[in-house]
């Protein structure tokens, strides 16, 4: 799978990625690092421990990285969770809300990771 196909499969913005990251080989270099990124695992663990501050921090990082990589669907899902986890908003949500938002993130994350496996050369 080409880099362009990869972006189509995960609902990312290839055009934006090319515009900002110059070329396919550079994009490839960065997206291949994504499976090593710890923010998703940290988010998962923090939510399991109900540590909302750590969860916010991890979601925030995940949102930032995915924005940079133009993984639009995943970054949109993590943005939603990040905003809900902000200290000033937390009270408006139940724990079930966080979990359901997290499963959205997890769904998109899984899509990205399996697409990456198919892209790897």
């Amino acid at each position, binding site marked *: 799978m080409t880099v362009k196909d990869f972006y189509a499969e995960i609902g990312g913005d290839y055009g934006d990625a090319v515009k900002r990251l110059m070329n396919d080989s550079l994009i490839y270099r960065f997206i291949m690092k994504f499976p090593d*990124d710890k923010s998703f695992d940290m988010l998962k663990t923090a939510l399991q421990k109900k540590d909302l501050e750590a969860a916010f*921090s991890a979601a925030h990082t995940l949102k930032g990285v995915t924005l940079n990589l133009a993984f639009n669907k995943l970054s949109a899902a993590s943005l939603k969770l990040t905003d809900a986890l902000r200290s000033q908003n937390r009270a408006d949500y139940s724990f079930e809300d966080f979990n359901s938002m997290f499963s959205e993130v997890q769904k998109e994350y899984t899509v990205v990771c399996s697409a990456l496996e198919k892209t790897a050369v």
Partner: protein
Amino acid sequence: MLNEFETYGNQKKRGILIVEDNDINREMLKSILEDKYEITEAADGLIGLEKLKEGYRDLSLVLLDVQMPNMNGYEFLEHQRNDELLSSVPVIVTTGSTISEDEEKCLALGASDFVTKPYNPRIIIRRIEAIIRLSESMATLKAVEFDNISGLYTKAAFIHHFQRYMDENKDKKLDMLMINVEGFSYINELYGVAKGEQLLKHIGNVISVCNFGAIMSCRYTTDRFILMRVHSDSDVSKEVVVYNEKIHENSPVSGFVLKFAVYTDVDTSVSAASLCERLSVTMKTVRRRYDMQLAFYSTEMANRAKHLKKMEESMKDALKEKQFSVYYQPKHDAKTGEIAGAEALVRWIHPVHGFLSPADFIPLFEENGFITKLDLYVWNTVCEDIRNWINDGIKPVPVSVNASRRDILSIDTPERLLLPINENDVDIGLLHIEITESASVNDNVILEKVKAVRDMGIKIELDDFGSGQSSLGTIRDIPTDIIKLDISFVRNIEKQKEIVKMIISLAHALGHKTVAEGVETKEQLEILKDFGCDYIQGYYYSKPLERNEFRQYLINNKH
């Protein structure tokens, strides 16, 4: 613009420190920037701060993430802000958030700009170029490492390195030594600024070459040097004699006096900046003391400084709460004995320290500038009092008010003086200003201002004449109406009759009146009367009187 910047940049790649905990983000920034810049990376704020301390000389910019473990971006900015050298490196915050409060907070903490995710290389590069260009164009205003006259550290650099040294050597006992060239401004006046600079250069050179056991040293202010060294129990007073000789050897200027302040086994829990401040306080105790060359820091000194600080804090409220009261000391005509005027004096009725005389607070106020507010308050009060006497049918007498050098230098002095006179509709001839000769000698700006005040119709009294470094030239140069003999002439009048007589005659010959203050005895009065002194002020007639007492005094004393 860009071309100019780029050619500039060709000489050597500028350094950028990327402080970002996320590997992908950090590498993305690095790949965007590494063609043009020398990149240093840090995975959290704490590491970032260390890298900045190590490499600030070669860093043109910091790119800083906000959300980070160990030390976040805000904390990083706060630490950086407290160190003048570190804060000279500009920071761009890389924020993932769209919440503008975060950005505001960063800017308030000293960040120069921010970029948001997703990173757009072209925008990032443009912003970085703009910030670096701005910061380099201001570089002359920024903290520099070495003082170009002495070759030693600048104050900012010294405080930075001293602090680092203490942080890294927590168990070490340290000593500090300050060297001050006393009366440096006189050297400049006497030999010229170039010679003065040569002297500073010479001292810097001696300190670098002879070292005096210093780990590091700086030129702290114009004429003050600080050395920091490992604590020793040796006799500093002997060492100081040697240092004094060394500095005088082959000096481009002779006849200057060095003063030393020593602080041994410094309190390393206190910041480097405060330690230097303590040394300055210590130096003050030997300033203008001809009998002392060396002072040691003591806790008593610190307490005194603390006391002064408290006084300083309480002074503003004091004015609002009317804790200052104006006292009047009568002046009498020497021949007729009638009251002929008064000097307005200020007392501070302090809520904690009680009754304070000017000696307790005027030096402090002169230093911190509060004196101008206080003197103006006295001036206003005097104008009001004169108006009240007139309203009550009491014949007023001229009142003299003290003015400091700072008062006279205030740009709008004449206007500020006129305001209460006009408001209270008081005859301007009833108001005198006392200036000391030391405040006015050899200073054309002051002389011009004094002349302007005198031209308005306010009489000038030259206070403390004959004390300190007075010269007969002063009496000729200062526009004045009345000469006030220094109190020391009256105290020892028996021993210096000829001098007192001469000063009075000289004043008269130049068309000035004379006042003697501190007159306590009949004998003193008679001698002064014989010599033709015009006015007498002192306990012989009256002590300084509280406002209401003085009002009664005016009623009781025919004039």
